[in-house]
């Protein structure tokens, strides 16, 4: 079930109403309701893959409880490896099997050996990368002694499958979310009201910006060979905005929905387009994934490579980002995307002192403005890799973009890829979104406008709600991160 479908608000109303009708002291029944609703929510897409979530949850529940009971190192190691093999095995099988087979065949062909492997007919279960990482963090935390295992299977299963964030995050740590399932919750009107505002803000970004941009971006990336450089430039800029609005929009709806049920999820985006370097960008972009990778991959790798000194840190960083790229999808473009991020972060790590000196000598505002623009340009360039079908496509797009004709601006070219109404929509919605996010940069989301006058709020809510009704594209697009 999609957040932007007609079914979702009906589903949400029914579940929410039933949920708060259950007395507070029977919160276990509320958890059972969440579990049932979450499985229904996921099963709406494909009920057969519910078995996979169940299996993954059951494995980690059993493993964690056994970990809590034993102190023997050998048994503990065996148990954590069981969890890793099961979870990563499922992920690798469903997400990467075809990629590895095809890459192997390609490699063999380059050395003159011909293998004829047929690709496996595997459907990628929606959200597998998200819930696998979520449930893995639980067993690792229990293994490390950072948290006690959950004794109640319903609480734990509800945590793994919690429908607001099941299919595209935020990737919630068990230590943050499981305790919330283990205590009674009271309806908090402030939290609920702000949750609703956050849902509306998420829908605004997803439906009005991302979904409207999707066909234009597709047109530019598919027909790049015949497009002038300025359109390719606009195309990749729009894709950067599309993916941000798509994913952060999803996160806002997820967090807002969870708040309606009395849960607090972690912020997943902190206005990343206002970052002054790439390191900061990754602290603001898909925060739950960045934190996960930092805690469960980068830090352990850095410790592992500590004997290598700075080289060890760089190696850990490169490996982390290559795997981060691979997490996004089984394609070489994502691996190169990750590698490219690693290279720039390494550069920033090594040049931190030098850049600090330049900053001192320059006007602060000018330095910040240049940094902001450079970071966005870097991110945009990376987005070519993110959006392209393969490395050849990415390179061809990039090389067509780099041209002296880039500065030849023609309205006719723009109107060839979007009609005037689309152009008007973007000229209103995108600056409005950026303005709200600048004004609200210290808040949780762009529509946290509790301090505004009542009539300003009334006008804003009405305009956004009506715009959603009026400007939802006829062909609604899936959330991009569902494919990851």
């Amino acid at each position, binding site marked *: 079930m999609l957040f932007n479908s*007609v079914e979702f608000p009906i589903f949400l109303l029914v579940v929410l109403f039933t949920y708060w009708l259950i007395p507070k002291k029977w919160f276990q029944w509320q958890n059972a309701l969440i579990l049932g609703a979450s499985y229904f929510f996921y099963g709406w897409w494909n009920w057969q893959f519910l078995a996979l979530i169940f299996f993954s949850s059951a494995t980690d529940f059993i493993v964690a409880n056994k970990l809590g009971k034993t102190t023997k190192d050998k048994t503990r190691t065996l148990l954590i490896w069981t969890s890793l093999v099961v979870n990563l095995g499922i992920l690798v099988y469903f997400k990467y099997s075809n990629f590895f087979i095809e890459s192997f065949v390609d490699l063999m062909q380059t050395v003159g050996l011909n293998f004829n492997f047929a690709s496996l007919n595997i459907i990628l279960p929606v959200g597998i990368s998200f819930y696998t990482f979520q449930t893995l963090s639980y067993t690792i935390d229990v293994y490390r002694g950072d948290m006690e295992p959950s004794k109640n299977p319903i609480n734990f299963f509800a945590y793994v499958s919690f429908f607001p964030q099941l299919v595209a995050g935020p990737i919630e740590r068990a230590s943050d979310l499981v305790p919330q399932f283990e205590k009674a919750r009271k309806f908090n009107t402030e939290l609920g009201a702000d949750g609703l505002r956050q849902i509306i803000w998420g829908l605004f970004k997803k439906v009005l910006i991302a979904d409207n941009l999707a066909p234009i971006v597709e047109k530019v990336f598919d027909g790049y060979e015949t497009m002038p450089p300025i359109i390719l430039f606009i195309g990749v800029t729009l894709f950067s905005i599309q993916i941000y609005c798509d994913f952060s929009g999803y996160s806002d709806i997820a967090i807002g929905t969870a708040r309606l049920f009395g849960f607090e999820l972690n912020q997943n985006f902190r206005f990343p387009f206002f970052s002054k370097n790439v390191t900061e960008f990754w602290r603001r972009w898909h925060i739950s994934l960045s934190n996960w990778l930092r805690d469960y991959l980068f830090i352990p790798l850095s410790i592992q490579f500590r004997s290598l000194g700075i080289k060890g840190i760089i190696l850990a960083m490169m490996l982390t980002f290559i795997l981060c790229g691979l997490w996004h999808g089984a394609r070489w473009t994502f691996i190169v995307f990750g590698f490219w991020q690693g290279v720039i972060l390494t550069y920033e790590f090594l040049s931190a002192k030098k850049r600090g000196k330049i900053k001192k000598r320059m006007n602060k505002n000018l330095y910040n403005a240049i940094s902001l623009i450079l970071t966005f340009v870097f991110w945009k360039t990376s987005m070519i890799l993110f959006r392209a079908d393969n490395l050849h496509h990415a390179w061809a797009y990039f090389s067509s973009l780099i041209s002296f004709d880039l500065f030849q601006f023609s309205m006719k070219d723009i109107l060839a890829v979007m009609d005037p109404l689309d152009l008007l929509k973007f000229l209103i919605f995108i600056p409005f979104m950026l303005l709200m996010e600048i004004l609200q940069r210290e808040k949780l989301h762009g529509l946290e406008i509790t301090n505004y006058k009542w009539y300003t709020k009334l006008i804003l809510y*009405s305009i956004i709600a009506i715009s959603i009704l009026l400007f939802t594209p006829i062909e609604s697009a899936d959330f991009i991160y569902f494919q990851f």
Partner: protein
Amino acid sequence: MSIKAFLVKLLFYSVLVYLINLGIGEFFKNDNSKKTQLGIFYPETRWNEFYSLPEKSLDLVFLGSSLCYRGINPELVDSLTHLKSFNLGSSIQSLTTTYFVFEELLNHQHPKVIYLDLFTRTLNLEDQLESVRYNYEFMNSGEAKDNLYLSGLNFTEKIQFLFPAFYKRDQLNSIFKYAFKSIDTSKISDKYYKKGFVKSSKRMSTASLNLKLNGLTKFDWTPTERTEIHLKYLQKIIDRCKDENIKLILSSTPIPKSFYKIIELEQFEKTIQDISRKNNLEFINYNKTGLPLNDTLHFKDHHLNQYGARILSTKIAEQINNSK
């Protein structure tokens, strides 16, 4: 804030947004009325003309989609056959919608013959809202209209139908297009003519048709979840026609030859042939009757223009005369 105050606020905002939505719906309705007056929006005129006919005065009725109302000119058919006919085709008319249009037809008329024109989309259209909206608003109140909403739409579509600002939003493009300039009526190449027929004077060149070929996968024959339902309604039409002693002829208006190259129609045609055989009905596929048509006799991708419609209508009249 207390829960009561929270709920009151929420209710207030929801009612306000809903009322604005209804207001926008009225705005869209007015826009359609203006277009109706100019002759470039047809459903209202077609239904009004239909309701103005004397009861049980029609001999022949054509049902189907835009291919039908642009391709078959009842006036020409009437002049050649001395019958009284009417074209009740409507935009994106799926078979489910056709059934309720057919019910409304029988509430007022009892034709001897019905031509039911079929195209891939009439059988595999998923979004019923698109189809229903061109009839519901303009049909007289009654059981057929109620059933079109109650049975013609699924649960989700019924909810969407309560939000005219949402389901009519595609009108915004034309509203925006003419916001800064008035419609030049002398340049309008297709207009409502009479008896349900829409006359299109524009000719399409083969080159411009070929340009359109890329985006036409939507016309391909791929059965959808809704196909079964559409076929169920087709069977209901067939059964009712038998009960009412109405001769039902299944037909398919011609599409450009260049489209035929890229759209796999065989399976679609086989499905219709099987149904017609099973129910002992005549199926006339005008793509295969050797009509002297070429791409310039079409308008707006696959529709016939008035010149193409003349050829098709003459052929239909000839077949009717031969069967007398």
